């Protein structure tokens, strides 16, 4: 991005502007995880992601983020800022509702990102897990369902932490192959 005669960043060319939008849009799902963990609501998380993306695109197009490496930090701070505003706003709404004797909003769902994964996809992953051998299935279940730290998992299985990592890595690879994807590459949403 160049500068104009006054030294201000000149607006990006159309193709560059499109690229910026595409790159920031690609981060939407990560922002949903970030916001849903704090706000416990998919709708609120979507709003935060949208607002953060809008601000990031504006900042990039205005040349306020000069280095690509600064983008994650910008996104973190911006999303946190938007979450804080929304949280305080929600607090005021709750107080107002109490003041007027109304009921408080219903509690947040236990699975704010549940709708992110379709029933069809859940079934496919469940079936793939069922086709793994028992050892692979056990290690993935203990890791992701019970969320046992590696050390606890190693003690439970009577092996070393290193062995747990190797087995888990291989099990994830076999699961990915059953699902027809290559591990470590983002899948199209």
């Amino acid at each position, binding site marked *: 991005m160049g500068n104009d005669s006054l030294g201000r960043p000149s607006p990006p060319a159309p193709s560059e502007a499109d690229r910026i939008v595409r790159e920031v849009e690609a981060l939407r799902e990560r922002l949903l995880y970030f916001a849903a963990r704090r706000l416990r609501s998919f709708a609120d998380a979507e709003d935060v992601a949208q607002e953060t993306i809008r601000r990031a695109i504006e900042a990039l197009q205005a040349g306020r*983020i000069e280095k690509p490496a600064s983008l994650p930090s910008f996104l973190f701070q911006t999303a946190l800022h938007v979450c804080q505003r929304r949280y305080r706003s929600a607090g005021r709404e709750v107080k107002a509702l109490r003041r007027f004797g109304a009921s408080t909003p219903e509690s947040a769902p236990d699975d704010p990102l549940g709708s992110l994964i379709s029933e069809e996809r859940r079934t496919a992953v469940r079936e793939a897990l069922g086709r793994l051998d028992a050892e692979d299935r056990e290690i993935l279940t203990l890791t992701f369902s019970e*969320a046992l730290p590696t050390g606890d998992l190693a003690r439970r299985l009577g092996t070393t932490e290193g062995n747990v990592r190797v087995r888990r890595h291989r099990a994830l690879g076999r699961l990915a192959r059953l699902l027809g994807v290559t591990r470590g590459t983002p899948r199209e949403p």
Partner: protein
Amino acid sequence: MREIDCTRADETDLVALYLAGKLPENEAEAFETHYLGCERCAAALREGGEIRAALGKPVLVSAPASAEAPGRGQNVWTFLAAAAAVAAFFYGLGHVAQRPQLVTDSAAFRSGSVDSLALTVTAGPAGVVLEWPAHPEAQRYRIEVVRSDGLPVLESETGDRRVELAVVDLPPRPEGVHLIATIEALDDTRQVVAKSRRETLPGS
């Protein structure tokens, strides 16, 4: 905040613990900073979420109650400093009749061009004084302060046209990074009807 490299995220159980809400808050935030810029970890997050969903678990367990106010813990100083700055901002010269409410929704830009607003920045007794002329359609004015590296610092609204910002109360900044202020005039539908140029704050 401790940095997390991709190798560590891959070799350990970070993703599973994060999704299950079992990671300490400071580590969860460090991981978030990392995965926002890491495609590999973002893919691992999706993969872990899918496995949890297939096993009948919530894709993601929300932060525990002790950390549910966003920004508590590691970032509490940021929040407190910003709150102190907002307070100093509106009590500085005694020209503000009442403390303005925090912004609760985003202003939209009116289609087409908006008027320019002449923002004057001068040094004041407790910081920096921002002044701007009245706009005939404006109901409120939104003040936004960002760092020169793009990070947002402060955002608030007021019905006044003069405020003082106590720069020293704002979160510390790396050397060479300064603060930039912008004022937007909002009409009664919260559309932006005028906007100032971005002005660098002296002494920042």
